[in-house]
């Protein structure tokens, strides 16, 4: 290996015609590619000097075979110069700032110095811009009156002069422009920010066109034996054809009109050859009508050379399929279909210590029949790097041949470490390392508790899987990327993995209030946990059978010495907390690993604020925390299955009394609104400070109606108690809220657009069902019905209006935040924390003198604080600390 070299500087310049001819190996004059025998025409577009793509032929320039020849440039001599589309803006600027007769910069030396700064002052480097030159002035050097230069996209320049009071446009040919640019002196160019040593402006007008090597525009042979040429070749054919015709006409002395037409046509072909998406220019099309993919299209955009081929690539050793849940897996595991496990391999080097094992893998061969059979191998690699595909035919021979120095590509088997990923990969927890469990079926399986970091659900989501191929990669995956080392989010310092949905409902049902279980029930609940002994039973019933409390069952999954006190998600925030005597059983007290009081819910084990989980991580480490999540998810699923949990339409039913009360509240609110409108109409309304009368009225109406909706919710909530599934889910924090319940059972409430009542629609009214200028509640989107009772047609329409706003908002937000994220990641991606605690760029430039100013990694902190003081005191005092 040669020693690495440092890039000192990069120079960007233009090719001069001289350079183009110098690098060219062949002048191309024929538009044809291959003759009837399929042999390239000499001096055609596929000339053998430009490199070879057909196997067997040798390049006439470098005498190498197709695989080794890098290709060589040729050139086309253009009959007349044409403008390079990529430089039209530079050309326009130069035409506008230089004299039309002497081509000097339209400024005196003093004026230039004022802008550019003195030659040897260290602050030089300012550039003269188009704005610094006054329009239509007289040249200070030769006294010529300047004309306005018009530029018309894509490549037309013209001069405007006034004749008999009329404006006349005179078109400038590329040759005229080139002549002007040629005469601009070097020092004037420097003042304009152009380095004439590497980029003379006349080189932006092409007189000779480089022909790229065939290797970058290979032709492909279709199944029917026909050749299909690359888009670039098609375009070059067009250029050569027009160029030839142009030359012939020129030599024959054709009339000016025809010459001009041909010139324009040549300009069009060269323009589209360079960029086929120029504004004001119809794109050149393939015979099938598809726009051609020319030079600029190869580079630009997401699938272009930069973003598509250089920054991003496709990889081997990856798999993708649909995901589905399996609560019996550990959070650190992933279930993989046998078909995928059979296909994917990891290389193992044969040594004298593992040779027998490797031999067995080879003997097992590439087909593993069931998930329980031992894994086999798909390839064996000889010491000379020859890869041998294993098949039934050669298994035994290869098994005999292996010896230390070989490499065996073994199939995936249980406990291998793999990287698991779901797009969009917005944060680092979007890729985590899991342990393999080979399974039947065709989907990836994961524990639903790891859904939150991936933001995954099972409505058809697909995920990707990658197999680290080296020992180093596997070690890194295990230590840095494993699920158990990513339970704490580096954003908040709190857990991001934890129970969701039914886990929370289940643990809530299990632990709510004090209940007793028989031995059978306790064993049913704990059968998937590895609990060896049950605790002393809480009491014995009249028949002498032991009974355990639900809190005792939950305590089985807690670490023995855990002490903590906190309030559950179901806490009502009463004014005086009755602590252990809480009527909602929302005051949680854990002493020495025993749940004394309280209901475990979202605050305890939830994915974003699992306090028990957090405490276990701080005091017992990640491994124990991962086990806790596994145990809790299994226990809670059993807990919910013990009684069953469902929700149906009749769960939203209320009794006659409640419906009466709700109607009363709504009628009251509507008449209250009418009363306020009356006051307003009489001119008696007092405006609120800083508001107009209308705004005051609107606010009052919104307030009254909002309150009415909440009242109906209270009425419904009073009837639907803890035996209602929706209430359990809302109270425990598993899913939904009391508002959702209000809307299902009580009343939907006010629909709004931009936080205001619905005002749009017809003239002075929202719908023709209402009177003009009516201000009442129903006329502006107040819905008295609930989802259960069903909406009236007008209500349904208002609901659709409000719903549409929500949809538009989310659509706009995701696209905007996605782009924001992309820009942010691009800016931050190479920053890292150096060993001295500073945040630096790759060039060693300092961004922060200490990471986050305090040097704390939030992923290893307690909600941002370096020490969990409250946790330590609680575990010592075994009581709550304020």
């Amino acid at each position, binding site marked *: 290996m040669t020693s690495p070299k440092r890039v000192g500087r990069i120079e960007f310049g233009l090719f001069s015609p001289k350079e183009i001819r110098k690098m060219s190996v062949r002048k191309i004059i024929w538009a044809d590619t291959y003759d009837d025998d399929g042999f390239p025409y000499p001096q055609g577009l596929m000339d053998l000097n430009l490199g070879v793509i057909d196997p067997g032929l040798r390049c006439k320039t470098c005498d190498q075979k197709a695989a080794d020849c890098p290709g060589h440039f040729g050139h086309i001599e253009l009959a007349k110069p044409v403008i390079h589309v990529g430089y039209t803006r530079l050309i326009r600027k130069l035409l506008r700032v230089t004299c039309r007769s002497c081509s000097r910069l339209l400024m005196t030396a003093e004026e230039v110095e004022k802008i550019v700064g003195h030659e040897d002052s260290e602050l030089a480097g300012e550039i003269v811009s188009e704005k610094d030159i006054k329009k239509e002035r007289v040249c200070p050097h030769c006294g010529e009156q300047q004309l306005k230069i018009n530029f018309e996209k894509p490549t037309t320049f013209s001069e405007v002069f006034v004749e008999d009071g009329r404006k006349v446009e005179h078109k400038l040919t590329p040759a005229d422009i080139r002549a002007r640019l040629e005469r601009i002196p070097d020092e004037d160019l420097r003042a304009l920010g152009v380095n004439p040593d590497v980029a003379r402006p006349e080189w932006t007008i092409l007189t000779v066109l480089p022909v790229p090597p065939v290797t970058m525009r290979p032709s492909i042979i279709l199944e029917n034996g026909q050749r299909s040429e690359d888009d670039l070749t098609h375009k070059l054919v067009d250029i050569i054809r027009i160029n030839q015709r142009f030359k012939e006409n020129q030599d024959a002395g054709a009339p000016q009109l025809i010459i001009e037409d041909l010139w324009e046509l040549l300009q069009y072909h060269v323009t589209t050859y360079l960029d086929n998406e120029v504004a004001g220019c119809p794109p050149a099309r393939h015979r099938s009508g598809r726009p051609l993919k020319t030079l600029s299209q190869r580079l630009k955009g997401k699938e272009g050379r930069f973003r598509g081929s250089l920054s991003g690539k496709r990889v081997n050793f990856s798999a993708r399929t649909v995901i589905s849940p399996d609560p019996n897996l550990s959070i650190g595991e992933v279930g993989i279909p046998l078909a995928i496990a059979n296909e994917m391999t990891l290389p193992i080097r044969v040594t004298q210590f593992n040779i027998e094992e490797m031999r067995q893998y080879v003997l097992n061969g590439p087909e593993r029949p069931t998930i329980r059979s031992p894994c086999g191998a798909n390839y064996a690699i000889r010491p000379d790097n020859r890869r041998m595909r294993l098949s039934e035919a050669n298994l035994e021979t290869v098994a005999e041949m292996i010896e230390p120095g070989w490499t065996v590509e073994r199939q995936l088997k249980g406990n291998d470490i793999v990287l698991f990923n779901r797009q969009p990969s917005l944060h680092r927890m979007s890729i985590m390392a899991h342990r393999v469990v080979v399974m039947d079926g065709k989907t990836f399986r994961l524990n639903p508790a790891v859904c939150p970091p991936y933001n995954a659900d099972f409505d058809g989501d697909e995920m990707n899987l990658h197999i680290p191929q080296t020992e180093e990669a596997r070690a890194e995956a295990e230590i840095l990327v494993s699920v158990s080392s990513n339970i704490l989010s580096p954003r908040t310092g709190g857990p991001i993995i934890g129970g969701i949905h039914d886990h929370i409902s289940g643990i809530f049902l299990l632990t709510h209030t004090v209940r007793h279980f028989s031995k059978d029930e306790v064993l049913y609940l704990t059968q998937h946990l590895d609990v060896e002994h049950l605790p002393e039973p809480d009491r014995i019933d009249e028949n002498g059978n032991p009974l355990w409390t639900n809190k005792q069952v939950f305590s089985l999954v807690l670490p023995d010495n855990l002490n903590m006190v906190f309030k559950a998600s179901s806490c009502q925030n009463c004014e005086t907390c009755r602590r252990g005597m809480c009527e909602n059983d929302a005051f949680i007290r854990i002493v020495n690993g025993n749940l004394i009081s309280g209901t475990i819910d979202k605050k305890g084990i939830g994915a974003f604020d699992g306090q028990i989980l957090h405490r276990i991580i701080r005091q017992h480490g990640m491994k124990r925390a991962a086990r806790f999540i596994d145990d809790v998810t299994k226990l809670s699923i059993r807990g919910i299955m013990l009684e069953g949990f469902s929700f149906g339409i009749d769960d939203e039913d209320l009794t006659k009394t409640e419906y009466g009360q709700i109607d009363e509240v709504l009628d009251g609110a509507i008449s209250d609104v009418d009363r306020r409108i009356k006051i307003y109409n009489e001119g008696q309304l007092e405006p609120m400070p800083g508001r107009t009368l209308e705004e005051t009225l609107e606010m009052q109406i919104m307030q009254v109606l909002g309150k009415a909706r909440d009242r109906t919710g209270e009425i419904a909530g009073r009837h639907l108690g803890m035996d209602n599934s929706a209430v359990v889910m809302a109270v425990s924090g598993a899913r939904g809220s009391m508002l959702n319940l209000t809307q299902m059972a009580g009343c939907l409430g006010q629909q709004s657009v931009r936080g205001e009542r619905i005002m749009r629609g017809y003239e002075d009214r929202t719908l023709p069902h209402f009177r003009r200028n009516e201000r009442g509640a129903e006329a502006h989107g107040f819905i008295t019905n609930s989802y259960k009772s069903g909406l009236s047609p007008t209500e349904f329409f208002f609901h659709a209006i409000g719903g549409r706003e929500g949809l538009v908002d989310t659509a706009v937000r995701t696209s905007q935040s996605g782009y924001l994220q992309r820009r942010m990641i691009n800016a931050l991606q190479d920053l890292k924390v150096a060993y*001295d605690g500073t945040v630096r760029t790759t060039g060693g*430039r*300092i961004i922060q*003198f*200490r990471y986050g*100013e305090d040097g*704390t990694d939030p992923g290893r902190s307690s909600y941002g604080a370096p020490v969990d003081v409250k946790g330590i005191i609680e575990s010592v005092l075994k009581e709550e600390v304020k």
Partner: protein
Amino acid sequence: MGTTLDVLNHEMVPDHQIMGEEEVADLLATYHITLEQLPKIYHDDPAVKTIGGEVGNVIRIIRDSRTAGRAEAYRLVVKRPKK
């Protein structure tokens, strides 16, 4: 305009100090960096103008920090490029 505003007295403007040559040398030595690797601040920054910082000076900025209580940053004064 009659009244002039001293930006340094504004509650949101942290303390800016021009560092002495020795201090700068110490600073560069502790972080093993060259002057160019420091973060930059423009010469026409209102706070820099008020304390009389010039191109090439290093400014110490002492801020209140939500995470650390007090944080120091150092910035090299550079000329603002035109446009």
